[in-house]
């Protein structure tokens, strides 16, 4: 059965259609809760919420163009110790799904009972751009304001883990709502929603080839323009010159899940004696030491699984293009490892492959 091109359509807007759909699913007990964005009590500030009351679904903002917290990070927090016991519908962007799949592979969460509704993603606006009074204008000019990471994102069509995909970004503007039913579960659920009509449609890839081309081109530009460690340390030193060491990039990254970062351990921290003797030897040293060590170390740890979400750049208070640097390195590393984060739950992460091999070596 080719479910890929089986779609639900509605004349109403995407937000209304989804809220209606989610409300019904909550009411008829098909799902138990909804994981979606809401605006907080302060204008222009958003948070992920777990909604259980069908009447509060009206507050959900499906695919509002902002990512206050990477969705995978929030889902991981909830499912690291136990999976959801009853079905939850999670509205996630493609990079959030990829990151969560990586979390699951690294035992940092569970996909059990999570019904994923995703979208062909037009990108999100940096959260800081929505803090000002001009937020309506910023939202209106969505395309001109999206993150760098989104501009270069070629993975904007969700992977096989998405049960439903809403056609959000498309080459031709379209009225109403088109929802792809990607899995049997989605088809089953769709069967219970009589207000939406079933049709067959063109695959999402066909309707977004223009966007895909533009993104490929931006990614190529990024690969050309952004320095990598191999280009020599100097360019990285100046890129990270303004780094205040807040580690927000690490805290926000859905893949940095170490409880104690390697770059805060006795192994990597510079001893006071070393710092002082270096100052004596060289005449002067920058303190606190280890800014670049942290960045390069994180780059090494994360580049095999970086899902190019851009969250790290988003939180950086001094606007260092952190994700540009990570995305460039990730592209090179992932290509050489033939690894695509989030592609398949059964793909073994590169590190784990080595681990297995090591075990075999020892048992031989």
């Amino acid at each position, binding site marked *: 059965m080719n479910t890929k091109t089986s779609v639900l359509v509605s004349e109403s807007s995407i937000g209304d259609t989804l809220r209606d759909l989610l409300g019904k699913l909550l009411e008829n007990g098909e799902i*138990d*809760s909804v*994981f979606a964005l809401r605006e*907080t*009590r*302060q204008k222009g*500030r958003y*948070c*992920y919420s*777990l*909604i*259980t*009351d069908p009447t*509060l679904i009206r507050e959900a903002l499906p695919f509002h163009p902002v990512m*206050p*917290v990477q969705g995978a990070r*929030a889902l991981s*927090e*909830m*499912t*690291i*110790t*136990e*999976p*959801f*016991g009853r079905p*939850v519908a999670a509205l996630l962007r493609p990079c959030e799904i990829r990151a969560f799949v990586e979390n699951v592979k690294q035992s940092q969460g569970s996909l059990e009972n999570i019904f994923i509704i995703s979208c062909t993603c037009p990108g999100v606006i940096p*959260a*800081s751009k929505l*803090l000002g009074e001009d937020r309506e204008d910023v939202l209106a000019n969505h395309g001109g304001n999206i993150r760098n990471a989104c501009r270069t994102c070629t993975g904007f069509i969700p992977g096989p883990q998405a049960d439903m995909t809403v056609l959000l970004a498309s080459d031709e503007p379209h009225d109403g709502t088109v929802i792809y039913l990607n899995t049997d579960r989605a088809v089953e659920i769709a069967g219970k929603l009589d207000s939406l009509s079933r049709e067959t449609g063109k695959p999402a890839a066909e309707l977004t080839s223009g966007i895909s081309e533009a993104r490929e081109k931006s990614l190529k530009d990024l690969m050309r323009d952004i320095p990598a460690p191999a280009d020599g340390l100097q360019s990285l030193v*100046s890129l990270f*010159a*303004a780094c*205040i*060491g*807040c*580690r*927000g990039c690490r*805290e*926000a990254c859905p893949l940095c899940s170490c409880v*104690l970062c390697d770059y*805060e351990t006795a192994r990597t921290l*510079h001893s*006071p004696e070393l*710092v*002082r003797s270096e*100052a*004596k030897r060289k*005449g*002067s*040293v*920058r*303190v*606190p*030491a280890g800014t670049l060590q942290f960045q390069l170390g994180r780059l090494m740890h994360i580049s095999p699984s970086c899902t190019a979400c851009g969250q790290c750049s*988003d*939180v950086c*208070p*001094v*606007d260092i293009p952190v994700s540009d640097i990570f995305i460039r390195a990730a592209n090179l590393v992932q290509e050489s490892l033939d690894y695509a984060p989030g592609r398949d739950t059964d793909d073994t992460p590169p590190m784990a492959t080595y681990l297995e091999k090591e075990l075999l070596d020892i048992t031989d």
Partner: protein
Amino acid sequence: MNSIIVDFLEKALVSDYVSSVLVPSGGPDNTFPWTLISDVSALAMAEPVPPVMYVQGAKALASFTQSMTEGKLLAVMRPCEARAAVELSKLEQIDLDNIILLTMDCPGAVPLKEYRRDAGIQPDISIPETIRPLCRQCTEFTSAGDLCLAMHGGLREVLPLTPAGQELLDSLGMKAEPDTSAWIEWASSLKAEREAVSTENRKSLKKAYSGLEGLVEVFSGCISCRSCRTVCPICYCRLCFIDMKDRRCPASAHLENSRSSGAARVMSGTLLFHIGRMAHMSLSCVSCGMCEDACPSDIPVGRLVSMVSAGTTAVFNYSAGSDPEDPLPLNTFRLEELHEYED
């Protein structure tokens, strides 16, 4: 101001009374990294009072001074940074024994994000809009540490504040005994002005975000990046209470929360984190504003901690960083407790 300090540092370094100097230097891209200098020629790059605060000076100092055995270090920093250094010495993170702290009449610092957008902005003590909200209400803008460069009341003079400071001046043969009355007058009148501003600001902050409901509102935009904690000189815990395993909030707990109100915020622990941090910081917060500068969500987190701190320190009759001999209230308890067990 910069050149007077650089001259002073040079004299001190050449004299061999101090063997190294900690001072911000001009870096690439309008940055001012802290540099530990032992060679006089490296002073050429020194920018002792940069327009912004990238890294809190006490944090930089603590990264290499847990124990100080060889030689004296002269560190130049803003008053709030020097006060944080004093706090950190009480918390056994800095060994101040061989460290001399030089401060100045602080002009304040430009908000970091504004400065990154426009590096032309310079802090001007007489134009509050050019400096950070916490600087505008800062009442301890001068005379911290062992020595202070006075730049007002007709002075351009390094004044000793402690015996250690006096000893350095003596060894450099700097004997001037200037008339400080006009400077003291300047400082007390600015202090009075700032005290009024700070009382007013704290009042309106309290009013705007009163009680638990108010805190929920003000922190609703918090994205849990924990930058405020990481950049705070006083938050030195290796493992923060909020990251302990039993604080993990599983799906079932989130669902329970959600059922009670219909919808619950995910990324739990935001409020617990902030209230906990306020409690931990409230005795030692030096109101330096670094946390607020780092917050990507523009939450007035420094003003809030500082407000809570003003209350707590009043209760304990304690003032963060002002006197190295004044023990931290909790440390006193600790000692008393020890003695109780001895009895």
